[in-house]
């Protein structure tokens, strides 16, 4: 495989409240920032990730395209997925060898709709969506099953949330949420702190290959492995206490010897399931950014995990990190990107 690295990462100051700006206005500052930082205004390929239903109208990516200054016309594509999968598409394009740089971005203005109602529309439309099941209820079932198997208690989940929130308060881009308090449930056994907050935000990453990466970044975060896998949709045919797709993606991506892992866990128990699936021991620093429990801009949150994992390499505080993205109910789909500061090329 060709050597490809994350050479720049930019993200918005995420917001838990509707700031009265359109998605286009959320995307523009991160695109501007990443162009300034890399000194690039044209890229070999551009790919974005978003979801039309967040704005309740078709073609959310069309207006976001206006922020790129896509003139003369650019080579561009879009996945109706988290931006992490847009990064995967761009990585594949770079592997062919005809281009040396790619711009990837993801965005979601989650506050302008009812996320739980929207995500209900993600379920099987013939058998499941009409029941009105929401993603938090399904996550609660998964949490219950996982706690039954592992012996983990509600306080252990709360500890995950507390650690994430404390880290998030150290992160200028995340929401600054207080320490968890109170005994009330969202959907038992999940307390409100165990559920990712509604968040608006955007992020962008620049990928570059070989020498181009070395020119653009002092310490590129080389992608040593990237893989994604999906499981069936129906919860009844999966072992919800384990993530088979995350385990497989981790194996294929070569997730070993990780120092820092940024996991797209939207519920506290998901972090524990993912740690197990990816073989991350207690020595691994998980979600030093605060993770999705501190800021979860839908369709950008997974891409941000890769960006945060790359940042630890850019700043020299780690040499082998992992970024993860998830999609679908109860971790149905998982992507793992392993990054390294070492490069033999």
């Amino acid at each position, binding site marked *: 495989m060709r050597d490809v690295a994350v050479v720049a990462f930019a993200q918005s100051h995420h917001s838990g409240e509707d700031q009265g700006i*359109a*998605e286009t206005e959320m995307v523009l500052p991160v695109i501007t920032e990443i162009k300034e930082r890399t000194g690039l205004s044209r890229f070999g390929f*551009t790919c974005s990730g978003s*979801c*039309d*239903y967040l*704005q*309740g*109208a*078709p*073609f959310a*990516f*069309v*207006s976001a*395209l*206006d922020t*790129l200054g*896509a*003139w*003369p*016309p*650019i*080579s*561009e*594509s*879009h*996945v*109706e*997925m988290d931006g992490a*999968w847009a990064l995967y*598409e761009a990585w*594949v*394009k770079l*592997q*062919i*060898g005809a281009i040396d740089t790619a711009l990837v971005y993801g965005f979601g203005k989650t506050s*302008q709709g009812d996320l739980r109602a*929207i*995500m209900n*529309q*993600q*379920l*099987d*439309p*013939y058998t*499941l*969506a009409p029941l009105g099941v929401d993603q938090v209820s399904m996550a609660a079932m998964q949490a219950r099953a996982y706690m039954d198997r592992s012996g983990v208690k509600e306080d252990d989940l709360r500890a995950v949330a507390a650690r994430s929130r404390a880290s998030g308060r150290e992160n200028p881009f995340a929401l600054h949420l207080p320490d968890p308090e109170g005994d009330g449930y969202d959907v038992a056994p999940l307390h409100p702190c165990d559920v990712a907050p509604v968040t608006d935000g955007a992020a962008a990453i620049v990928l570059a290959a070989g020498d181009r990466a070395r020119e653009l970044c002092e310490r590129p975060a080389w992608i040593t492995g990237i893989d*994604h*896998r*999906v*499981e*069936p*949709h129906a919860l009844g*045919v999966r072992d919800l206490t384990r993530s*088979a797709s995350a385990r*497989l993606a981790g194996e294929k991506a070569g997730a070993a010897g990780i120092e820092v892992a940024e996991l797209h866990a939207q519920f506290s128990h998901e972090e524990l399931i993912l740690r197990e699936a990816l073989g991350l021991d207690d020595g691994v620093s998980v979600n030093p950014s605060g993770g999705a429990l501190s800021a979860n801009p839908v369709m950008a949150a997974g891409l941000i995990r890769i960006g945060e994992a790359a940042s630890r390499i850019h700043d020299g505080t780690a040499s082998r990190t992992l970024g993860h993205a998830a*999609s*679908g109910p109860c971790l*149905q*789909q998982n992507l793992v990107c392993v990054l390294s500061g070492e490069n033999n090329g």
Partner: protein
Amino acid sequence: MAKSCAVIGIGQTQYKTKRLDVSMAGLLREAARRALDDAGLTWKDIDAIVVGKAPDLFEGVVMPELFLADALGATGKPLLRVHTAGSVGGSTAIVAANLIQSGVHERVLTLAWEKQSESNATWALTVNGPFTTSLVVGAGGYFAPHIRAYMRRSGAPDHIGTLVAVKDRQNALRNPYAHLKIPGISREMVESTPMLWEPIRYLETCPSSDGACAMVLASEDAAKKAPNPPAWVHGTAMRSEPMQFAGRDSVSPQGGKDAAADVYRQAGITDPRRELDCAEVYVPFSWYEPMWLENLGFCGDSEGWKLTEAGATAFDGDIPWNPSGGVLSSNPIGASGMIRFAEAALQVRGRAGEHQVDGARRALGHAYGGGAQFFAMWIVGSDKP
């Protein structure tokens, strides 16, 4: 550099107004099984799945590839979902081809679909973002003024669109999968239908269809083992430009010209009209044939309508366009681009049946979308490049 990529399997469903006999999953399975059978493969031979469709509002399911994952045979495999508006069927095929050309995978199943009967596409296309307003109703409302601008600047007479409407529907009579089959289709019949969006008449528009298209793409090694002749990918290109800014030429968009130039360069083509044997081009409103003839460099500016009028693009013309009947005859929107790509491949594989263009060895597949701002194209050939 890019590794070789071949189309070794193609499957399509019957296109029709309502497929009440199948769910979305059933529709996709039908196309996928036919593509796998053509390729002599089973689900377990497939390394990854790339699926495309147009906006989720068309069926009202958010990111439907998730509920379809196991029906697509994707369990334990990578699954990507592409969405680039009307060009998506073409873009999806290109993303799948990239997975082969990069050496990441050996065999990729790619599918595109729309089951428009489960919602209302014209309504879905009329809803605008929360910060903008629009008086445009459906795609026809958007494209009619651009067609009018083309007529004015090219001097095309009023009947050119009618000729395309008749020609494509005549071609559809040869295609077993086509949605609209209108025996005895004639200019008089088209001209007698209501004006929807001046100058677009009812029979100058595409239908709303349910349908799916699937292809199996393979590496050179995998293609050698295929039971049926492959179509080799000679070039792919995607281009996007902003929807609106002062000076943008939305009649003949630069993105279309650039993508065509790029794909011709990759395929070593300098004169597309002479060097291509046929083309499957995204013509959802009849007038887009002369417009795209110019945009794709088959002739000079304002000359496209003359080619159409002279019969150059007819089934027996020197450069047949849309021998399958095209988008005007079958339009499951998310699949329409992939159908163009697949039909181009069928032609160079010599497997297009009654609508086979004799001796077709190189063909263009084309798709566009958004406000005529997204373009996806590929050129396929009988010979390995």
